[in-house]
C-alpha cells in the first residue's frame, strides 16, 4: 500500500507540471521562493502559485562555477547553476523570484541572478524580537511588489484565507513527520524526504494536502499493524543543520545504509516548517512575527534552534544526533559548537558533525565517520 502511494506521488508530480502550465495559460502568475523566511501566503493571496525552486542537485554546479567561486556553499551554487542553465522548470515558470538576505553568499548571488530574472530581495534582520518592525515593513513592501507583478489587489481578507490554507498544509506536513515518532517508524528517512520534497511543488495546495493526509493515514495503519522496515532496536537518528532534498541526501542514504533510521529532520526542509501562523491577529503582523521566528543559523543569537532540538530529541526518542553543514556555510558550521554542547552535555547522546558538499567524492570518508558514530550509539 505504501509503495502504491509513493507511485501515486510520482504520477501526481508529473501531472503537476501540466497543472502549472494550465494555470499560467489562464493568465495567472507564478512566484518562485528560495527560502523559508519569505511568507508564501502573500503569493497565494495574489492568486499566484508559490513554488520552491531547485537547488539540491550537483548537476548544475559546474556551470555555476564559471561565475561563482568554487569555495562557496553547494546550495548557493546549485541554485544559481539551475537558473543560469535554465534547467529548473519551476524557475522557468516563475514570473518573479522572491529571495532574502539570509547569508552573505546568498545575497550577493541574488544580485547576479537578477540579471537572469527579476529577483525581489527581502532584507532579513538577524536578531528576531528586536527587529520585528523593519521586517514588517519588508513584508508590506513585498505585498506591493506582488500586486504590481500580478495586477491583483492583496486584501487583508485574502491574506487571512491564504494563512488558513497554508496552516492546513503545514499541519499536514507536521502530522506526516510525526508518524516517525512511532517506534519503529513506518517510514525511512529517505522516504520522508522524498514525500516532503515532492509535495512541496504542488500547484494546487489542496491536492497536496489531501495526498499528504492520505499518506499519513496509511502510515498510521502500518503503525497499528507494526509494519516497518526497521525494528524497535534500530538506532533513531535526528539530522539537524542545513536543508536536504533529492540530490543532496547522501548523508541520509549513508546513515540508513548503515542500519539506522533518520526519524527527524531539524532543518528548513523538515521540522522548521512545522509552525502555525496566528489566525486571530492582524494577518500581516501575524505573518511577520511567525516567519521571522524561524530558527535558522543566520540569526544571532539563535536560541530557537536549541529549543526546537530539545523538544524534538525528547519527542522522537532520539539515540544520536548528526549535524550537517554544507561546505562554506559559516553560520551552521560555527553554530555546531552550541549544538554539540546541547547534545553531549544535556542529553548525553552521541553527536557527529559532518561538513560536505553535494558531490559523491567523499562518500567513503563519510561512511567511516557515520559507522563509527553508530558504533557509539
Amino acid at each position, binding site marked *: 500500500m505504501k509503495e502504491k502511494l509513493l507511485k501515486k506521488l510520482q504520477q501526481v508530480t508529473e501531472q503537476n507540471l501540466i497543472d502549472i502550465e494550465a494555470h499560467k495559460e489562464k493568465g495567472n502568475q507564478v512566484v518562485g521562493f528560495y527560502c523559508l523566511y519569505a511568507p508564501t501566503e502573500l503569493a497565494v493571496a495574489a492568486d499566484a502559485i508559490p513554488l520552491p525552486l531547485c537547488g539540491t542537485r550537483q548537476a548544475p554546479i559546474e556551470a555555476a562555477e564559471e561565475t561563482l567561486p568554487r569555495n562557496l556553499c553547494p546550495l548557493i551554487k546549485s541554485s544559481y547553476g539551475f537558473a543560469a542553465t535554465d534547467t529548473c522548470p519551476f524557475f522557468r515558470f516563475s514570473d518573479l523570484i522572491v529571495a532574502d538576505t539570509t547569508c552573505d553568499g546568498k545575497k550577493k548571488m541574488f544580485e547576479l541572478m537578477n540579471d537572469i530574472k527579476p529577483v525581489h530581495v527581502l532584507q532579513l534582520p538577524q536578531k528576531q524580537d528586536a527587529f520585528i518592525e523593519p521586517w514588517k515593513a519588508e513584508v508590506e513592501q513585498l505585498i506591493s511588489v506582488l500586486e504590481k507583478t500580478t495586477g491583483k489587489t492583496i486584501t487583508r481578507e485574502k491574506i487571512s484565507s491564504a494563512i488558513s490554507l497554508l496552516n492546513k498544509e503545514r499541519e499536514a506536513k507536521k502530522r506526516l513527520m510525526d508518524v516517525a515518532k512511532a517506534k519503529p517508524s513506518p517510514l525511512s528517512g529517505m522516504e520522508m524526504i522524498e514525500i516532503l520534497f515532492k509535495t512541496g511543488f504542488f500547484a494546487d495546495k489542496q491536492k497536496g494536502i489531501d495526498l499528504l493526509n492520505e499518506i499519513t493515514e496509511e502510515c498510521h495503519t502500518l503503525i497499528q499493524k507494526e509494519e516497518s522496515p526497521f525494528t524497535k532496536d534500530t538506532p533513531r537518528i535526528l539530522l539537524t543543520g542545513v536543508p536536504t532534498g533529492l540530490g543532496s541526501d547522501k548523508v541520509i542514504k549513508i546513515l540508513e545504509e548503515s542500519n539506522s533510521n533518520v526519524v527527524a529532520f531539524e532543518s528548513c526542509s523538515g521540522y522548521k516548517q512545522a509552525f502555525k501562523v496566528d489566525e486571530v491577529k492582524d494577518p500581516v503582523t501575524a505573518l511577520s512575527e511567525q516567519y521571522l521566528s524561524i530558527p535558522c543559523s543566520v540569526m544571532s543569537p539563535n536560541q530557537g534552534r536549541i529549543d526546537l532540538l530539545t523538544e524534538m530529541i525528547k519527542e522522537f526518542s532520539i539515540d544520536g544526533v548528526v549535524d550537517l553543514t554544507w561546505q562554506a556555510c559559516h553560520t551552521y558550521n560555527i553554530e555546531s559548537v552550541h549544538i554539540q554542547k546541547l547534545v*553531549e552535555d544535556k542529553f548525553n547522546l*552521541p*553527536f557527529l558533525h559532518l561538513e560536505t558538499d553535494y558531490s559523491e567524492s*567523499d562518500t*567513503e*570518508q563519510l*561512511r*567511516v*565517520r557515520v*559507522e*563509527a558514530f553508530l*558504533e*557509539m550509539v
Partner: protein
Amino acid sequence: MISAGIDIGSRSIEIAVIENGTLSETRKTDTGFDPIGQAKKMINGLKFDSILATGYGRNLFEIEHEADTVTEIKAHAKGAVHSFPNATTVLDIGGQDSKVIKLNDKGKVIRFEMNDRCAAGTGKFLEIMAKTLGFSIDTFGAKAISAEKDLAISSMCTVFAESEVTSLVAKGENPVEIARGLHMAVVKRVISMLNRVSPKGPIVFTGGVANNPFVAKHLAQITQRNVLIPDHPEMNGALGAALLASENNTKKEKK
C-alpha cells in the same frame, strides 16, 4: 580459538593473529594499487577461525571473504585499551589520515574526529617531504631532532608545502632545519585536534607516525601530557580488530 584482524589502510595492510588471548603472529605489507589482491596474498597459509576487517578497504574485504567489519575508530580504541588499560585518549596518525578518539573509563568511544580529506599532517606528508629533502623516512625524525632551530612552514597542504620546501632549499636553508619545521607543523596540527576532542590525560599514540621520534617527543613536550606508544604502533588497528573478532567468537559460543 584463533582470531585474526586485518587493517587495510591506504598505505599499508597489517594482520594480527590472536591465539587464546595472546598475539601469535603479525604480518605487514604495502597496499599498492590492488588492496584486495594484496590482502588475499597476506592471508594465504594463515590459520584462523574468524577474521574481522577494518581500514578503508574493509567493505571490499567483507564482500570477498564474508568477514565482519568494524571502523578504524573502534579497532584503534580496542587496541589502545589492550596495551594501556586506562587509556582515555588515542591519537592515530596513519599513512593518509589522522584521528583523535576520546574514550570513557570503560574504554568505550565517546567522541572522535578524523582528518582524511587530504594527506596534510599525515605519514604520507612526512614521506613526500623526506623525499623532497633527500632523507630516508626511517631517519627523518632523528634528523629533525638534530636541528638547532626550526624554520616555520606555513603550508599544511602536501602540494603547497612541497613548493615551500623547494623554495627554502633554493634559498640555501639548512635541510635539517627545514625538516624540523615540517615536523613541528605536523605536531601543532595534531595538538589542535587533540585539544578539541580530548584535552586531558595521557595520550596513546598509534599508527606508523608514532615510530617517528620527533613527533612523539615534541607532542609530549608541548602538551605536557604523557605520550604512551605501544610496541608496534602500526599494528594497533589490526590488533584491535583481532581482539574484537575474538570477543565476537566468545559471544557466539555463549549463545
